[in-house]
C-alpha cells in the first residue's frame, strides 16, 4: 500500500468488548496490525477511522478472529465509541446465541458497514467477508492494475477497492483524504495509478479540477449513483484507451453488475438472459433482482431494488430512487432525472436538484448548478427558459442557482439538501 504520509491517515479509535464482557478503548496509531494483540478471540469491535491502512489491518487481523466488527466512518456519529451502548447490545445478542462462539476459529466475522445516511440516520448493514468480496475479480487484466483510493475505506465502494487490491496483491495508492480532490488526483497520478473507482459526481469534479493530460488510466469505474451518457462520453473522450465500467449495485439484495459498453443504463437483453449470473425483471417500472436468499424475499424470489427504470429503445435507463420521487401538483418527477437533463446543457458541469414542500403544489423543485468555463452571466435565467422549452412544466425548478461546487457526502454522492 502506498500512502500519503500524513499522520491523520493513521489514526483510528478502537472499542473492544471481549467475550467476558470487559471493554476497553485504544488508539491505533503506529502499529495498526497490532490489532490482533488488542482484540481477544470472539470479541466485538468498533473501529472508527478514515484510514485505509487501518481498515486493511482490521480485515487481515480480525477476520475469523473477532465476532463482529463495526466499521465506522469519522463523519458518522453513532455513539458507539463514546458510550459503547451499541457494543453492549451486540454483546447481549451474543450471550443469547452463545453456541455461535464454539469452534470460534472457524467462524466468519460479521462486518457491519454503515450507509451514507443521506436519508437520515445511518443504517447498519451486516456483511460477511464473502458478501463483501462478491464483485472481486480474479482476471489477469484486473491483477495488473494499480488501484487508487478516493473512496472512504469504511463504505461498500471503498472496501471493494481495498479488497480487490488485497486479493490481487497489487499496490493500492491512498492519498490523504483531507486534501483537495485536485491534490488527491495529483498524488494518484504521481504514483502511477492505472485504475480508479468513483461516483459520477466525483468523476465530474475530477474532469473539472484535475490535470489529466497523458494520464494512462486503463480502468475507470463509476458507481453509487446513476451514470448518465454525458459523463460516460466525457470520460471516454478524456481517456480513449480506458475500459469504462459503470456499476449497478443494489444494497437491498447485495447484487451487482457492471456495464462496459460506454452507454447509459444497460441493454434490454439483460432482462431475458441470465448469463451474467444475475436475473433481472422490470415490473411497474421498478427493477427487480432474483435473489431468493434475501430475508423476506417473495415466493418467486424477485426482490425490488427500489430503483425506477424506463425502457427506451433497446436500453433500460435508471430514473431515480423510488423513495426519492417528488409529487408536484399530482405529477411525478425524480430529482435525478432533472439533474440529468440540466447536465445535458452545454454550460452545466453538474447539478443537484432538491424538493421543497409547497402549499400550492405539495412540493416544488429547486436546483443548484455548477457552471462550466465560459458560461454566460445570466445562466440561471437562460437555464430556466431552456428547461421550460424542453421539459414538462413540473420539471422546471422554481429557482436555479449557480454555485461554485455541490455538497458531496463522504460516500462521494451529491447531497440533495
Amino acid at each position, binding site marked *: 500500500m502506498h500512502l500519503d504520509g500524513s499522520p491523520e491517515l493513521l489514526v483510528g479509535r478502537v472499542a473492544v468488548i471481549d467475550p467476558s464482557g470487559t471493554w476497553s478503548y485504544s488508539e491505533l496509531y503506529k502499529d495498526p496490525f497490532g490489532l490482533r494483540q488488542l482484540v481477544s478471540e470472539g470479541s466485538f469491535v468498533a473501529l472508527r477511522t478514515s484510514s485505509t491502512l487501518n481498515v486493511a489491518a482490521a480485515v487481515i487481523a480480525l477476520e475469523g478472529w473477532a465476532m463482529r466488527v463495526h466499521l465506522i466512518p469519522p463523519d458518522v456519529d453513532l455513539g458507539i465509541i463514546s458510550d459503547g451502548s451499541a457494543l453492549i447490545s451486540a454483546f447481549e445478542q451474543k450471550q443469547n446465541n452463545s453456541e455461535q462462539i464454539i469452534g470460534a476459529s472457524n467462524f466468519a466475522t460479521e462486518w457491519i458497514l454503515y450507509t451514507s445516511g443521506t436519508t437520515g440516520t445511518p443504517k447498519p448493514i451486516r456483511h460477511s467477508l464473502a458478501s463483501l468480496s462478491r464483485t472481486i475479480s480474479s482476471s489477469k487484466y484486473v491483477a495488473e492494475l494499480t488501484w487508487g483510493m478516493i473512496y472512504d475505506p469504511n463504505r461498500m465502494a471503498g472496501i471493494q477497492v481495498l479488497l480487490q487490491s488485497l486479493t490481487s496483491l497489487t499496490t493500492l495508492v491512498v492519498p490523504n483524504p483531507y486534501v483537495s480532490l485536485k491534490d488527491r488526483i495529483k498524488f494518484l497520478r504521481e504514483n502511477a495509478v492505472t485504475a480508479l473507482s468513483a461516483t459520477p459526481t466525483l468523476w465530474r469534479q475530477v474532469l473539472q479540477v484535475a490535470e489529466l493530460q497523458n494520464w494512462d488510466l486503463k480502468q475507470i469505474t463509476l458507481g453509487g449513483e446513476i451514470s448518465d451518457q454525458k459523463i460516460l462520453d466525457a470520460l471516454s473522450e478524456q481517456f480513449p484507451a480506458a475500459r469504462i465500467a459503470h456499476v449497478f449495485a443494489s444494497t437491498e439484495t447485495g447484487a451487482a453488475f457492471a456495464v462496459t459498453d460506454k452507454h447509459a443504463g444497460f441493454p434490454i437483453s439483460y432482462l431475458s438472459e441470465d448469463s451474467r449470473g444475475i436475473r433481472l425483471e422490470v415490473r411497474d417500472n421498478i427493477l427487480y433482482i432474483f435473489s431468493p436468499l434475501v430475508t423476506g424475499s417473495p415466493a418467486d424470489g424477485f426482490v425490488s431494488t427500489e430503483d425506477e427504470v424506463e425502457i427506451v429503445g433497446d436500453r433500460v435507463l435508471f430514473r431515480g430512487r423510488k423513495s426519492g420521487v417528488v409529487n*408536484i*401538483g399530482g405529477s411525478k418527477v425524480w430529482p435525478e432525472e432533472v439533474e440529468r437533463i440540466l447536465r445535458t446543457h452545454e454550460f452545466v458541469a453538474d447539478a443537484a436538484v432538491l424538493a*421543497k*414542500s*409547497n*402549499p*400550492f*403544489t405539495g412540493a*416544488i423543485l*429547486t436546483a443548484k448548478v455548477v457552471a462550466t468555463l465560459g458560461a454566460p452571466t445570466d445562466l440561471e435565467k437562460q437555464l*430556466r*427558459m431552456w428547461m*421550460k422549452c424542453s421539459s414538462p*412544466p*413540473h420539471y422546471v425548478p*422554481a*429557482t436555479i442557482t449557480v454555485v461554485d461546487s455541490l455538497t458531496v457526502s463522504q460516500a462521494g454522492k451529491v447531497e440533495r439538501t
Partner: protein
Amino acid sequence: MRRLRILLIPVVVLQKLLEKEIMTNSLRKTMIDTIALLLEEELIPVPELQDSTVLLETGLDSLAFAVLVVRLEESLGYDPFTLMTEAVYPRTLSDFVSIYEQYAP
C-alpha cells in the same frame, strides 16, 4: 413638560404607521416585481397589478404560485405558508401581500 409628552405620543404612533406603510409598500413592490418577472417568463402579458387584482386571473397557475412562493422566500427570507397553522389561499394581490405582512419576521 406634560404637554410635550402628550404631543409626543401621536408622533410615535405616526412614525409607527409610517414605518408600517413603508414596509408594506416595499413588500408590495417586491411581490409585484416578482409576479411581473414570472409572467414575463411565462410569456404572458403583464397586466397592471392592483390590490383588487385576482391573481389566478393574471394567468398564474398553481405551479406558478409555487414558484412565486419559493422566489419570495429567497428575496424576503421567509415563507409565511410554512409558518401558518391552517391553509390559507390568497385570492387577490392585497390578500397575498397581507399574508406576507402578517408573518414578516
